């Protein structure tokens, strides 16, 4: 593990405001943990201070439990990894009974990622989760195959996405975020469809579809052939998409995700336009990664005379 950069800390260090508002939720700091890489929180108990996080985003929840895909499910690739877990999760009922009570004690904001196989399942899931105490907001995973439309991802067609957001918005009273898929040639249109249909924030980006082949066995490295690429390999793409949405003037705050390993990576996302950042795959490598990223953001701010992290948001210099 890389040693924590604790320069410019201590009682004499200048204060840095870390609190941010993102999509209707007030966070004590901008560092969240990304869905699918932090379980339901409890898995990390004792490995980092859960109270220190801005918030945590749970594993994606569906109305009913799901068992997930055949194996192998993951493969390491250059500076990244592919996964095809199959959205395995405990379902709404078990989430409420078995997972939420612990999350309520974490002291960080709780955002529940959710999805469905059909339009109706999305609405049902959003409605049920949105009613639960201890849930501060919902994050829609729209990178799922739409069974009724031949398996095309819900989130790749602005019209379908807009209708889905609108339908969920009608039943969700809490903050409603949409996690955009990068598997598109036009991220801005997708972002706009969310903004026009009542979303409160955008999480950019989900994993990028990829594949890996074992030349010796002539087989794909994961059972479903295609998987989602994550890790530092995708950071330049994620930064570009955050920046494109910001530059297009889409009036929604952004939670930036994609290969964040340290405080500098997080600051880059904020400069590109993200208000909060989500630490994903790095939590597999270093379970305390989110806490480390936060400490390094603070250190960056002190070194650069930034008294409020909000100054960083969209602060990219292009001229």
């Amino acid at each position: 593990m890389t040693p924590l950069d604790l320069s410019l800390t201590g009682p004499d260090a200048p204060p840095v405001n870390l609190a941010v508002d993102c999509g209707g939720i007030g966070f004590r700091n901008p560092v969240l943990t990304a869905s699918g890489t932090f379980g339901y929180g409890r898995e990390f108990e004792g490995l980092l201070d859960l109270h220190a996080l801005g918030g945590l985003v749970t594993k994606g929840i569906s109305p009913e439990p799901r068992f997930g895909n055949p194996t192998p499910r993951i493969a390491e690739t250059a500076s990244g990894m592919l996964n095809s877990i199959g959205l395995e999760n405990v379902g709404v009922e078990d989430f409420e009974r078995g997972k939420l009570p612990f999350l309520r004690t974490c002291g960080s904001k709780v955002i529940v990622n959710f999805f469905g196989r059909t339009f109706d399942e999305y609405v049902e899931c959003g409605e049920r989760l949105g009613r639960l105490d201890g849930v501060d907001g919902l994050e829609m995973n729209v990178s799922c195959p739409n069974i009724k439309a031949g398996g095309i991802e819900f989130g790749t067609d602005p019209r379908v996405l807009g209708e889905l957001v609108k339908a969920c918005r009608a039943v969700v009273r809490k903050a409603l975020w949409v996690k955009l898929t990068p598997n598109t040639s036009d991220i801005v249109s997708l972002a706009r469809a969310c903004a026009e249909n009542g979303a409160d924030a955008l999480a950019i980006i989900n994993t990028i579809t990829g594949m890996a082949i074992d030349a010796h066995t002539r087989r794909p490295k994961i059972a479903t052939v295609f998987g989602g690429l994550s890790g530092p390999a995708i950071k330049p793409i994620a930064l570009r998409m955050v920046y494109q949405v910001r530059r297009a003037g889409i009036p929604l705050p952004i939670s930036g995700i994609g290969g964040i390993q340290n405080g500098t990576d997080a600051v880059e996302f904020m400069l590109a336009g993200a208000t909060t950042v989500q630490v994903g795959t790095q939590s597999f490598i270093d379970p305390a990664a989110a806490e480390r990223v936060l400490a390094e953001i603070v250190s960056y701010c002190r070194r650069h005379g930034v008294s409020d992290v909000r100054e960083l948001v969209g602060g990219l210099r292009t001229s």
Partner: protein
Amino acid sequence: MRYFDARVIENRSLGAGYYVLRLGGCESLERSEPGQFVMVRGDWERDPLLPRAFSLLGVAPGGRADVLAKTVGRGTALLERTIPGARLSVLGPLGKGFPSPARGVTDLLVAGGVGMPPLFMQADRASRAGLAAQCEMLYGGRSSRDIVLVAEMRSLGVPLFLATEDGSLGRRGRVTATLEARIDEHRRAAGGATRLRILACGPKAMLWAVGRIARERSIECHLSLEEQMACGIGVCLGCAVPARSRPFRYVCKEGPVFDASEVLDVAQLVTPGAGNPALK
């Protein structure tokens, strides 16, 4: 379970890509059980990205832990080149290990290739408990180059039966043939009264063969499985294995040691997915 920095005290090459890393600073691993594992990573920047899982070979007071590895890819190649003083990130101890040695039970420890460490540790545990005579180590590999730490194994006082596929050391053939011969021998000698138990770790094909032998002869059997995993703590869900009582079980949290009757060999399922909704 803790996430911490360890220091390489010694990196001992055993030839043919095998090496033992002796780590210091591993006080939190001192109470590890045979079969438990650690996730290990060096300061590798971004690539290779993920830590590597290793079953422990041994732990000792003073925060010392030994790991046996074999270079098979980039991660293990980088570890093979680490020098004393190098810093490694360690997460552990992880998972559930083998059952303790028990009086009245003879444990057949079946080790295949680089899957040997947890069985070495189990033999050491039995030896310390004064139960060395109640277990025996059956250790196989492709050739003599794949059989390592034999002197250390002998010093535990546990009977040792070696097998190599090319016959360059010990009995020629697979270690599973040795296992069958030892079971027959025990049954003959005691008139079938000896209570046998099998603990195994090694390549998948070997494990399923061991499981089959145990099932056919109604012998309790525990297998230590290996799967691709990213986190080691039940989060990435990469290390799923098809199971009997539920669609999947997870090597990192529920294993790596499983009762052989609980885990399923996907390749052997006549109808993939039969009785297992997750495999459809």
